[in-house]
């Protein structure tokens, strides 16, 4: 029953307005159960829009978008979204933020409280249950953002540059945390990033996107052995992947 399959079939998205913006053009993407897929591209390439469509925050203009075989029409707890700036409720403490999902869904209290306690331990914040988001560092806030999503047992995790605003060291420890969590839960993950290292380290497959209109220009399977850790970042295989992707993305020292 732990599905979490994603299927974009010829999905396009146009933002209407004074000047129409073609954000996504004919996206075809299938993600299987338990797969970790990274969307990699420069800012403005529509990768966040793609995630927002799947989350149900925005509607597709053309094409079909299926989650576990059903058309996506609205947001729901089966697709847990981790936002770039965590988007925690600033008036609720860590504990209240984590139980918010199951609580508003009317889940049995004893059950979700036990789960929330375990999740806080998992992300290393059991002693910060009473703290307000504003009292936490950026990395800690994002740990809460992950815990509150996992509290709902989603079938897929949609992560929108979740570590993009963290410093390099915190980012590494968050990547390790995510690897550990994913390797034990096996949930489907769609992960948006502009960081090549991050995409290679975490994912089974990288979809490289280009901008205006947003398109998937290349799909690269990453077959680095699992379980991975941040130690994988320095292996020869890793560096080979990186070189290939950089040439794919035409990253060079020459001015653009």
């Amino acid at each position, binding site marked *: 029953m732990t599905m979490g399959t994603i299927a974009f079939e010829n999905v396009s998205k146009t933002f209407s307005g004074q000047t129409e913006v073609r954000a996504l053009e004919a996206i075809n993407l299938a993600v299987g159960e338990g797969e970790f897929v990274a969307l990699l591209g420069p800012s403005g390439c529509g990768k966040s829009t793609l995630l927002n469509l799947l989350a149900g925050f925005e509607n597709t203009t053309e094409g079909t978008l299926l989650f576990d075989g059903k058309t996506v029409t609205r947001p*729901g*707890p089966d697709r847990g979204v981790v936002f770039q700036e965590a988007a925690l*409720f600033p008036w609720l403490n860590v504990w209240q933020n984590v139980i918010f*999902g199951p609580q508003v869904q009317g889940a049995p209290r004893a059950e979700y409280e036990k789960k929330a306690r375990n999740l806080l331990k998992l992300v290393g914040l059991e002693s910060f249950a009473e703290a307000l988001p504003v009292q936490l560092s950026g990395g800690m806030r994002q740990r809460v953002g992950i815990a509150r999503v996992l509290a709902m047992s989603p079938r897929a995790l949609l992560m929108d540059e979740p570590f993009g605003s963290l410093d390099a060291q915190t980012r590494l420890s968050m990547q390790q945390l995510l690897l550990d969590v994913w390797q034990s839960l096996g949930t489907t993950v769609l992960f948006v990033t502009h960081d090549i290292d991050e995409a290679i380290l975490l994912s089974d497959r990288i979809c490289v996107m280009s901008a205006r209109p947003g398109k998937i220009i290349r799909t690269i399977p990453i077959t680095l052995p699992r379980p991975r850790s941040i130690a994988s970042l320095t292996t020869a295989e890793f560096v080979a992947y990186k070189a290939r992707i950089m040439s794919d993305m035409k990253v060079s020292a020459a001015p653009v």
Partner: protein
Amino acid sequence: MSISTGPIASKPASSASHLTWSILSPAGWRNLRQILLAVVLPALVIVLWQWAGNGGSLFGGVLPTPDKVWQAWKVWAFGSSGLSLNPYSGTWLANLLFSAERVGKGFLAAILVAVPVGLAIGWNRIASGALDPTVQLLRPIPITAWLPFSIAVFGIRDMGAVFLIALGAFYPIVVNTAQGARDIERNLVRAAMMMGAGRWTILRRVVLPASLPSIFTGLRIGLGIAWTAVIVAEMVAVKSGLGYVLWDAYYVGRMDVVIADMATIGLLGLISDRVILLIERWVLAWRRLQSFQS
């Protein structure tokens, strides 16, 4: 501030100064200095006023000196010993309570209507389209212009005053609440939707708390208007309260009572504003931390 700030202050000296100054903590001293600083200007005005009025010629003798006002206030508050024909004697508290009760009722009514309406206007496009134009159309009509209407409809009774107060306080609360609901961070709403919250849950558990800072701004402005409205209403539409005494005392030439009355209104306004501020600090503790750290 400490006395022994010299770089070569010897140990015994510093511990001695510590002893003498230990009655109050450093924070206590800062507070005391704040209070002293705050009373300088009012004290100066009162002294000057007393000094100018001692000749008995201040504005042709119309304006009583502070000591006369104080005397009148004492009689008004506690009554005078022996027989007196002073109609205000000992009625201060009763009139104060009349006014405060009207403000309380009107202000509460305003909150109960304005907060839900404001949230609806800020949160829902249909509600906004249906309600906002009417609110904006009625808002420019000053509460003083509503006086004849109020008297005609409610007569010379409490209800008229409460109506004016509620109306006056309604506008700033509704406008600020709507603004707060409109300005809500998009991702907070998305996060709530993603976690399975329905429209009502989002309104109650996300939009309302996110709007509270603006709501409190509206409450403080609204309370100020409520005090204005109660005085205006009592001067014309009711026969009791601080506004009634104010106008009545003016008519019989009791400027000492008039000034004591004004001071009472000012004091009440200040105290009620502080009460709201205290509640705000308690309710919005999360916000205070936020502004301290950023």
